[in-house]
């Protein structure tokens, strides 16, 4: 399948899961909110350019914000993540990122330890910024710290479950 088409389909699926499944789950606790949609940016191929990545991040955030009814909140967090991603990949991987071609970050292509670091760092960054913006409008410091830790754990759990069940094969080599 065409790489762009594949990613568009994947984005629609991920957004559908986020809006119509995860958002419908009755809340367990104030701090536990399942965010999953940002995984799309984590799973984009290595070779995507930095400018393109910023634009993708912006549009992903905007589309998500439409459904969350919070214009700008998720856009800002997604943008920060899209901006930092290339630096982190260059830091974690020995080779130039462009050499990897169409492959995506996963356990196989990066190795378990770098991939886990990559997931944790970017998830934490995304949630940190998201909840910081939310905290500036209301809430206490306890709310900030508690929600940051709880949502990060839930998101990492969701991502690892998805990684276990769906093996993302990159056929294009």
């Amino acid at each position: 399948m065409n790489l762009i088409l594949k990613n568009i389909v994947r984005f629609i699926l991920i957004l559908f899961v986020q809006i119509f499944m995860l958002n419908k789950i009755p809340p367990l606790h104030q701090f536990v909110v399942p965010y999953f949609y940002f995984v799309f940016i984590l799973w984009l191929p290595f070779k995507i350019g930095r400018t393109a990545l910023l634009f993708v991040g912006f549009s992903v955030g905007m589309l998500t914000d439409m459904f969350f009814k919070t214009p700008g909140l998720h856009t800002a967090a997604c943008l920060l993540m899209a901006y930092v991603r290339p630096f982190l990949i260059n830091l974690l991987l020995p080779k130039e990122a462009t050499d990897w071609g169409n492959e995506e970050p996963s356990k196989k292509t990066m190795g378990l330890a770098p991939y886990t670091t990559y997931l944790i760092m970017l998830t934490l960054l995304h949630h940190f910024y998201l909840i910081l913006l939310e905290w500036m409008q209301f809430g206490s410091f306890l709310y900030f710290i508690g929600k940051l830790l709880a949502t990060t754990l839930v998101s990492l759990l969701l991502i690892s479950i998805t990684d276990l069940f769906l093996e993302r094969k990159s056929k294009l080599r």
Partner: protein
Amino acid sequence: MKNVFLFLRRYSIFILFLVMQGLALSMLFSYNRFHQTAYGMFSNEVAGRLNKQVNRVEEFLMLTEQNQQLHKQNAVLLSYLPSGKILADTSFQMVADTLLVDSLKSYRQFQYFDAKIISNSVFLQQNIIVLHRGSAQGILPNMAVIGTDGLIGTVISVSKNMSLVMSLLHRQSKVIAVLKKGSGLGEISWDGKDPRFLLLSKIPKTIEVSKGDTVVTSPYSDKFPPGLPIGYVEKVDQDQETNTYKLKIRTAVDFYAVQHAYIVKNLLQEEMDQLKNTLIKE
């Protein structure tokens, strides 16, 4: 000059990032203040249409509960029928009629529009409900939205066919409320913890409050019909610092299952606003 171009080229991505970030943040902060942007109008229509499709499935699954609610409301309305009432016997009393207007005739103050809820959430910190009624159907911002059982929220933004409602489960929602059994003006807000419970503050300790008391909208509000249930007192807490209670209120409306709503229009609103404006001018 050359250096400037070199600088721009070198940091072009960072500058792009900053510009986009600024755009996102300005959207976020201006929206929260004014609750209305062109973006809001557009996204309402697009996201609303998709939500409507998914909502059809959800609605089918909740038919039984909706039926029961409507049945109950029917029963209440039936009791208001004129056939169910008799006039008091006044033939023994002589009353001098000194009124110049017909006091038996009542004038309508609130008009109700029915609306369907096409998107609802309870798990966020700022929960917004989307209704399938908009400016084309005569909906304006700042109108009250009620459910079968009680108050739901306030309309904050309207597009052609959809409107956004700030539900009571919104961190910035503030509603003036009173206890049904007596006086005591308080403020309803939400602490973001549990979507089944609201907070009622500013009720003075001189008033006796017990578990199960009904909390209703205040008679002094210009958008909510007076006496509309908001919730029932679940727990009474004494606020140590002030002379007021901190009451935990169970919501009258079940926000998990709400499917239909009524939008309330105050027909005297325009007149009231005009009167208030004259006060400001002077």
